[in-house]
Structure formats: structure tokens, C-alpha cells
């Protein structure tokens, strides 16, 4: 297992380098000039020249990339052009927020999606299956921003049960932190739950038809044991892939949901940074989420081996 993990990490390195080159090039292809935005309304030519010099924007793009990469290797991801804050510090500030939101959303999604998927596969063709499918479809179709605003109006403004938006760090006040995060996590979670439910359902359907499930039933095992211990465990392999991919996506930030609930995570930061052409911030965050995504994939591969030991033999 350790050898496997080490191999996967080594393979990931060129991927990370490619991501960083790609993002760097893409950003500089964008029309618009960061310095014009930064210089303020007056656009003083003397200041514009000084800023270009200072941020090395007069250098050719490959040179700019190498300078950035050199610093990055030493742990310096540059500073935000907009606020002068070091990018690494910004990432350190936003990452826990994004992870908390992603984990809470995923927990909600798993709690709803997997049982619903199992149930609708088991009760295929009945009204339960139908209700689960319609609910899942609505979960997928309702836009996050609409659901978010409706929840705020109902739960916060009308009922006054939860704060309308904002964020409290988990370390500062865990209860309040969860209270502020529960609505955005729910909004994100329901959409993901629908995807999970569909995947669990189809995986369960194919597993329930297989010979070993019939054998298990023939042995006289209780239906619950057949479902959970025999069928679900095998059905989970493709579902785990979906979960890790979804989690990776969540880590890249959920722009609309963060915006509506004013959650200071990656999504909002990176969108603002793109609009302000805050190159170092975009670069730093995309790199960070890229690494997270790769990490999640490695984790998924490791999880398959736990769920299905036969995979390790190959």
C-alpha cells in the first residue's frame, strides 16, 4: 500500500507543474490589464509605469512564470496585488472554511443520497422509487442561488432561527460555526445528494442482480445483511469515485453558494481575483485546489483497495 501511494505521489508531480503552467498562460491570455484596474480611477501614468516595473509585468511571460515558480518552490506564492496580503496566508485563511463547508455538504449528501439510492433500488418500480427519483431530479434542477435566498428569507428573516449569512471559525465557537454553515451546506448537499442517489441506485441495481447476492439469499441470510454487507459494499466502489470527485469539486469553492451566504471560502476569492486580474492569487488557489483534487484521487484509489481487496493483487 505504501509503495502504491509513493508511486502515485511521484506521478502527480508533473501534473501539478502542468497545471501551474496552464493556469499562468491562460491568465495572461485574458484581455484587460491588471495595472489599469489597480491604478484606480485616475490612472496616473507615472504610477502605472511604477506598478508594471514593481510586479515585473514588463518581462516576457515565460520569465514571469519562472520567477513565480522559483519563489513558489521556496514556499513564496507572492502577494495579492489587491490587498498586499501574502497568497499563502490567504490560502491558509480560506482553506479551513472551504474544507468545513465541503465536509458538511458531503455529510449531508451522503446521509440523504446513499440511503435513498439503496432504498429506491431495493424498491425498484414502486412509489418509493418514484418519489426518490422525483426528489433527486428536483434537487439537481433547483438552482443553488434560488434555494439559498429562499432559505435565508424563510429560516432567517421569517423564522429567525439561523443567522442569514456570515462565518464564524470552528475554533472560535463550534456551535455558532455550524449554525452559520448549515444552510449553505444544505444547499450544496442536496444538489450532490441527487447525484449520489442516482449513482448508488444504478450500482445497487446491477449488484442486486448478481449471482453472489442470490447465493447469499439462498443461504438464508437476513435481507438487511444481504443488502448492507454484501450488496452495498460492492456497489460502493463506483460511488466512492463519485464522492471523491464531488469532494474535489467542492474544494475548488462553490462560488454562488459562498456569495449568497457570504462564506469567505475559495470560490469567492478566486472569482474576485480573476475580475481584478490578481494573478498571484488565482495562480496560488488553482494550484492548491489542483493538488487537493489529485490528493482526493489518490485517496479514492486507496479506498477501492480497502473496499475490494482483490484490486491490490493486480
Amino acid at each position: 500500500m505504501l509503495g502504491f501511494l509513493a508511486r502515485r505521489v511521484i506521478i502527480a508531480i508533473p501534473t501539478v507543474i502542468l497545471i501551474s503552467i496552464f493556469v499562468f498562460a491562460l491568465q495572461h491570455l485574458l484581455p484587460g490589464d491588471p495595472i489599469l484596474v489597480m491604478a484606480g480611477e485616475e490612472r496616473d501614468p507615472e504610477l502605472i509605469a511604477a506598478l508594471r516595473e514593481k510586479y515585473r509585468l514588463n518581462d516576457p511571460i515565460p520569465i514571469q512564470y519562472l520567477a513565480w515558480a522559483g519563489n513558489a518552490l521556496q514556499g513564496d506564492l507572492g502577494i495579492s496585488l489587491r490587498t498586499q496580503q501574502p497568497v499563502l496566508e490567504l490560502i491558509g485563511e480560506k482553506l479551513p472554511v472551504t474544507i468545513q463547508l465541503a465536509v458538511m455538504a458531503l455529510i449531508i449528501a451522503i446521509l440523504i443520497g446513499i440511503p435513498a439510492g439503496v432504498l429506491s433500488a431495493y424498491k425498484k418500480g414502486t412509489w418509493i422509487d418514484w418519489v426518490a427519483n422525483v426528489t433527486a431530479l428536483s434537487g439537481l434542477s433547483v438552482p443553488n442561488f434560488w434555494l439559498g435566498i429562499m432559505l435565508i428569507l424563510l429560516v432567517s428573516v421569517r423564522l429567525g432561527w439561523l443567522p442569514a449569512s456570515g462565518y464564524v471559525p470552528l475554533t472560535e465557537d463550534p456551535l455558532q460555526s455550524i449554525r452559520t454553515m448549515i444552510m449553505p451546506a444544505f444547499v450544496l448537499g442536496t444538489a450532490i445528494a441527487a447525484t449520489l442517489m442516482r449513482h448508488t441506485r444504478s450500482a445497487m441495481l446491477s449488484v442486486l442482480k448478481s449471482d453472489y447476492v442470490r447465493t447469499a439469499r439462498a443461504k438464508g441470510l437476513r435481507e438487511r445483511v444481504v443488502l448492507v454487507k454484501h450488496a452495498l459494499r460492492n456497489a460502493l466502489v463506483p460511488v466512492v469515485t463519485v464522492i471523491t470527485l464531488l469532494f474535489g469539486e467542492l474544494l475548488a469553492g462553490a462560488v454562488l453558494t459562498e456569495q449568497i451566504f457570504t462564506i469567505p471560502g475559495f470560490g469567492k476569492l478566486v472569482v474576485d481575483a480573476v475580475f481584478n486580474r490578481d494573478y498571484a492569487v488565482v495562480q496560488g488557489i488553482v494550484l492548491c485546489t489542483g493538488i487537493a483534487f489529485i490528493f482526493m484521487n489518490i485517496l479514492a484509489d486507496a479506498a477501492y483497495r480497502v473496499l475490494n481487496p482483490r484490486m491490490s493483487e493486480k
Partner: protein
Amino acid sequence: MRILKTLGLAAMLAATSGLVHAQDLRIGLQEDPDVLDPDQSRTFVGRIVYASLCDKLVDITPDLEIVPMLATGWEWNEDGTELTMTLREGVTFHDGEPFNAQAVAANIDRSKNFELSRRKSEVRSIESTEVIDDYTIKFNLSAPDATLIAQFADRSGMMLSPKATAEAGEAFGLNPVCAGPFTFKERIQQDRIVLEKFADYYRADEINFDTVTFLPIPDTTVRLANLRAGDLHMLERLAATDLASAEADDGLVVEKATSLGYQGITMNIANGPRAENPLGQNAAVRQALSLAIDRTALNQVVFEGAFAPGNQPYSPTSPWYNADFPVPERDIEAARALLAEAGFADGVTIEVQVTNNPVQAQVMQVVQAMASEAGITIELAAKEFATLLADQTAGEFTASQIGWSGRVDPDGNIHQFMTTGGGINDSHYSDPDMDRFLNQARLSTDPAVRKQSYNAAIAKQQEDMPIVYLYHPVWIWALDSAADGFTPYPDGMIRLHGVSVAE
């Protein structure tokens, strides 16, 4: 019944725990400010935070008169090249450093010479500073500059602790140290900025909050929902479309002030080959476009009538507005006649670039519909702001819908846009008379004399129309009805002196 009781109890608990102690004032901002260094920053919301953090040499009244703040008085010499200011005694910066003439000199030096200063153009006329004594400072100017005092009512006049700027350098904005009513406590980007009351503030008795928290909440609906839910005490820039509902809400109070800025359409008159089109070459076509627009209807349709229709760089309520040229009524016949006179009886087609946000796009769609009835076909090019700005500077445009946030001194709304070679004259409009009027207006410190120059400049602008002005935004604040003492100012700032919230 038991379930109902439990639910009710839970709701009450949740509601009370959600209540904010009134000693902390919570203000919702439309966006997250940029760097909190008055010499470096450029955002409007940043200035809102400074109003609580950094006192200035002078301030304005709601009627735009300049009044003392950290300076107690000032005097110009005869030819307007020397400005002598007396300073308030007994003021300290948040780090305990004394505020005096040396500190002012250091601040001006930083605004003028710091590599990353965005204030250079605002204080360019200051050639040198002279410390007369601890509380008197003299500014020697390279040429008379009547606009300087008004610059001191904004970021150029904000006084930063010289010790802190020397130590922090360009990182000053991460922990700003000024002489305002509140000190900087913490900032989490895109989440909050927290300030704490400064015990040694010279007007501490007017400050009624222990802390003030600024929360950037970009979505206007959500910002209002937060206010209604009691999570905010006030918010800035309520959407005009929410005005009626907020005014009808007993729990809220709405305050308004017409801004110093404007929105308009900037024409490319001589900025590269794209200027060679009917609109760029004929003032009559630009006048026709202006006459084709029903500014009152535009304001009704897009802003529910909450904004101020306009046709000059100054709003009709400004003392600098030229009353000889009132906001024109829409006149399709006159517009068509002007087009025919210019040789375009069959109409013209022009492209107008606009930022891709829904409100500005809607403004231009209304203008597009109105103009088409006069024979002017407008093709809209929606661009994201950074791209729009780059194209506008480079002359890659025919006409551009863009605005200006406005300045206290009348010079700030027109000089750089209309003088030959002006820093933001993207039209490349050039007229010797206009240059003369606007340069002259800088020389006198007598408002009556300046007014004559601006009247002449506006008359010229109405003729040449390098910019067709459309409207002036109105700042709309919504406050919890428990809040008291808030005064709306045309600069859109939130001044907390005398503001309180009943418990």
C-alpha cells in the same frame, strides 16, 4: 401542541442568540475593500472604512462646504501659491505618536513620493512643505491650485502615523495606524473588518460603539435580508428596486443622498482610427443621441425613479450645476433634424461598449430602444470591466458607457476628462477654449470666480458633448429603526460621530 411549544422555544432561543449586542455596530458593504492603506487604495468601500479609521485634515458638510477636522484653520496667500494650515493640538495616532506639523509633512511626502502611491496626481501641485511650528504647516505650490483643499477632505488628507508607515512600508495596509475614532483590530478578507473604539480619540464622546464590524455582502437581496434578520444595523447601497419595500418596512429607516458622481457615455473623438465614425466626427450626432434619450423614463424604468437624471458632470442639485442647461426633454424631431443636418438623414449605426453587469446592461438597452426611434442604431458590446477599461484607454471603442465616482471639488469631475492630454481623457477631446476655462478655474480660490469658469466650460461641453451624461446615482442607506443620528452625505461615506443604536 408540545411540538409547537418546543419549536417556539427553539425559535426564541435561536433568535436571542442571533441578536447582536448594540455596542458592536454591524455595517453591510457591497464589496470587500482593497488594501487598507489610504495612499494605495482605490475602492469606494475602502473609503467607507477609513471614515471610521482615519481622520482627515478637513471634512465636508452635507452641502459640500469644507470644514476643519485635524486642521483647525487655513489661509491662502495673495496669489494662491501658499497654503498655511493650523493644526489641532492634543491629537495622537493610534500607536500613541503625536499628531503635529512634522507628521503632516511626512504624510504629504508619502502621498507624493511613495512608489505605490495612488495619490500622486492629487497632491502634485505641492512643491514643498514647511514646518512653521509644531502646529502650523505651510504648503508651497508650483502653481495656484484651488482644488487642493478638497483633496485634503479625502484620502490625500488622511493622516497616518509616520512611525507606522516608516516601519511597515508598503505593508502598512495590513495593520493601518491612523488618528480616527476607531483603531484597526482584524480583517478576514471577504468576511469582515473589525475596528475598536480608540479611547484617546479627541472626539471620543461622540462615538457610541465599542467596536464596528464591516461585512462585505455583495448580493443586494441577501444584504437586505441580513438587515431584516437583525444581523446588520445598517447597509450601504440598497438596490433601487428594493427601495419601496424597505420604505414600507416599519423596522427599517431609509436615508438618501445624491452622489457626486455620474454615469454617462464617453465618445471616442480622436483616440485612434476607431474615432473615425459619424459619432466621433460630428457633434450634431452626439447632440442627437442626447436628445433622443428620455432621462426621466430611463430613471423610472431601471431605478424606479430613485436616481437623479442628469446632463452635466454635476447633478442638478450641486452648486456647480449650470442652470442655463437644464436636463433636456426628449425631442425625437429635433434629434432627427440634427442627424439630417449632419448628413445622416437615413440614420447612423454606432457601437457602445458596456460592462456586463445586469444594471448597466439594462441602462444601455433602454438607451438603445430610445435612440432607435430617432434613427440611431446602437449595437451593444458587453465586456467585463477590466477589458472595457483597457479597450477604452487604448482607443478600441466607438462609445463607452462608464461612470465616475465623483469628487468634492468641481475640478475632479471634469478637468482630467476634458482638457487636452488629461489623464483620463479617453475621448482625446481637445479644445483650446475648454482648456482655458478649466485651467482658469483652478487658479482662483473664490467660488464665485470659479463658478463663472465652470459655467463657460459646461456651455462648451453641451455643444461638443465628448461625454453624454445620463444620470447621477443616489446613495441609499437602510438602517435598523433603532439606529439614530445618521447623516447622509453626498460622498457616500458613513460617519459614525453621533450615531447610536437603542438597545
